[in-house]
């Protein structure tokens, strides 16, 4: 390894066989390049899906009503279910200990919203003070609704960041401004931002105000909860699923719905969904690994092939060297030394090039479900080492065979 003479001999050989060296190197470098890019995109896809998923609190559970599809206790199918305040309150009475945050939600419809002379076409939702945490909304200015607002039916509103940019460009801050909702003035007390613009096109008002001012009675449109975060993911999923099933059973009973009529009252658990997502991204990652490993195998086969040809091509030279007094091991050593050197250099070149590309281009990739493709450096390094090792093993056998061919036979080789 540290024999200077050997290095000189190898550099000589490489310098005088540029094409052969280049082709060997190219196959190794491209193998590594493809693998790293694939792994990078596998990771990017996982990042992307995780990102899509992080929009709402990861442990949230949502309830919204539907239409019955089964006859039950003399009631016809096709009946619309309407959630009421009492449903929300009884759910808290029964399962209040299990949840961390909770909020009912009322969609305020058929109202006109104005700011000064400008008409605003944004959805208005009556929610409770916990809703901020369920939606994962970040307050950029002011505050969210609080307990007092809800209890006192305060005429206050929280608007999304996008509304601020769309409508309130003329004022320094929308805080303290009033919007007119069907003749009732609401004071803006907070601005929130969300990951997606779509979710910033909302105006939140206290749920009590939404019901009392806009003729909502005790009707609510949906209910949402979050589960406390636990260390163990699987345990959290089990808890969430249990909560979801208990809640669904309770609501079905309260609304006289058949227990197996799942469309009448929807209960959706983000955790359960997350598990599906995680196993999906796990599968995607597995798929990319699979493809990557196949690429590596193809690379190994390619390197082996080239080594085989290189050794075959050099059989006569090996014979000459042996006739001149080269020992078998020195020939095997020389060929391996050269092949390891070439695969190592080109392998790392492929690695650096592909990682550089991911590093530079990765952050600019804006495609749904792909975010910041990157690759674990250790994984990449080990694949290069695997390829070098494979190249060495692949080179060893033909080299050994060539070195043990009878010198006369080797000299006859054309």
């Amino acid at each position, binding site marked *: 390894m540290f024999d200077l003479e050997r290095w*000189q001999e190898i550099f000589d050989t490489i310098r005088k066989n540029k094409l052969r060296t280049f082709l060997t190197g190219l196959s190794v470098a491209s193998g590594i390049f493809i693998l790293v890019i694939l792994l990078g995109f596998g990771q990017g896809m996982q990042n992307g899906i995780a990102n899509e998923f992080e929009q709402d609190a990861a442990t949230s559970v949502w309830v919204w009503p539907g239409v019955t599809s089964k006859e039950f206790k003399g009631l016809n199918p096709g009946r619309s279910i309407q959630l009421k305040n009492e449903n929300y309150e009884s759910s808290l009475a029964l399962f209040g200990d299990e949840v961390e945050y909770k909020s009912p939600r009322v969609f305020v419809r058929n109202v006109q919203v104005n700011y000064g002379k400008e008409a605003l076409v944004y959805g208005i939702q009556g929610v409770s003070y916990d809703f901020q945490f369920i939606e994962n909304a970040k307050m950029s200015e002011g505050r969210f609704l609080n307990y007092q607002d809800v209890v006192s039916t305060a005429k206050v509103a929280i608007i999304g960041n996008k509304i601020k940019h769309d409508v309130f460009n003329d004022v320094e801050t929308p805080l303290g401004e009033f919007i007119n909702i069907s003749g009732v003035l609401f004071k803006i007390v907070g601005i929130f931002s969300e990951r997606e613009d779509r979710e910033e096109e909302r105006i939140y008002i206290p749920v009590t105000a939404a019901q009392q001012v806009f003729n909502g009675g005790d009707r609510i449109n949906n209910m949402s909860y979050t589960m406390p975060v636990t260390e163990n993911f699987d345990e959290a999923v089990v808890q969430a699923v249990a909560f979801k099933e208990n809640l669904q059973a309770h609501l079905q009973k309260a609304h006289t719905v058949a227990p197996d009529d799942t469309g009448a009252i929807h209960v959706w658990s983000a955790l359960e969904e997350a598990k599906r997502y995680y196993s999906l991204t796990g599968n995607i990652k597995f798929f990319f690994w699979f493809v990557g490993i196949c690429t590596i195998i193809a690379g190994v086969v390619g390197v082996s092939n080239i080594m085989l040809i290189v050794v075959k091509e050099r059989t006569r030279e090996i014979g000459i060297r042996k006739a001149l007094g*080269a020992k078998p091991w020195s020939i095997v050593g020389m060929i391996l030394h050269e092949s390891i050197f070439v695969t190592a250099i080109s392998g790392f070149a492929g690695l650096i090039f592909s990682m550089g590309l991911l590093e530079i281009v990765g952050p600019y990739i804006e495609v749904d479900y792909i975010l910041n493709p990157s690759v674990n450096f250790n994984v990449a390094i080990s694949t290069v080492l695997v390829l070098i090792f494979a190249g060495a093993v692949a080179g060893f056998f033909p080299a050994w065979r060539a070195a043990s061919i009878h*010198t006369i036979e080797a000299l006859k080789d054309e």
Partner: protein
Amino acid sequence: MIEIKDLHKSYKMGSNVLHVLKGINFSVKEGELVAIMGSSGSGKSTLLNILGMLDVADSGEYTLDGVPIKNLNETKAANYRNKFLGFIFQSFNLINYKSALENVALPLYYQRVPRKERQAKAMNYLEQVGLKEWSHHLPSELSGGQKQRVAIARAMVAEPKVLLADELTGALDSTTSYEVMDLIQKINDQGNTILVVTHEDDIAHMCKRIVYLKDGVIMKDEKVKQIKASAYV
């Protein structure tokens, strides 16, 4: 220099056994120039390969410069080849991507001679065969005679005890053959021991002794009056 006693060698060809050498006895003294003659199939190349330690005899004794050559493994054979023997082949067997100088220097690489010394020595031998100006040319840029002279320089560079030449003029026209033989005779005149395998009568008669092989045995072994190749050049 070379002692051979009752040398036997046979090859298995499927179920047949081909007895190639059937008890060869012969010796070569230092400074001799011996031609081994015979038609193809007479066993002359096999004899040369055994002498060159490229092949192993089935039975018999072989002593080279007082060293008994037996129980050879590849590593040992390589060592002996490097120290004792220089080869000259019909097809030159130069490494095609190395220059004339590097080809000549190669045996010294396997003797672990430092690079500078290697090249100086190789240049010296190239000069002796009259190819100093061609030292940086690749074999493909040389004529047949020049290639063979490079091969002779390569065989000489490690200062072997014996030079073994296998049909060294086989690929050359007669004028070039005589030039090469002239060189061989000069090297012999310096005291080197040389064995030449050939089937050409005129080449054989440029040696000092001719051994006739037929069907694996020595038919005739005679000293001849050497014809100087320089007379034809």
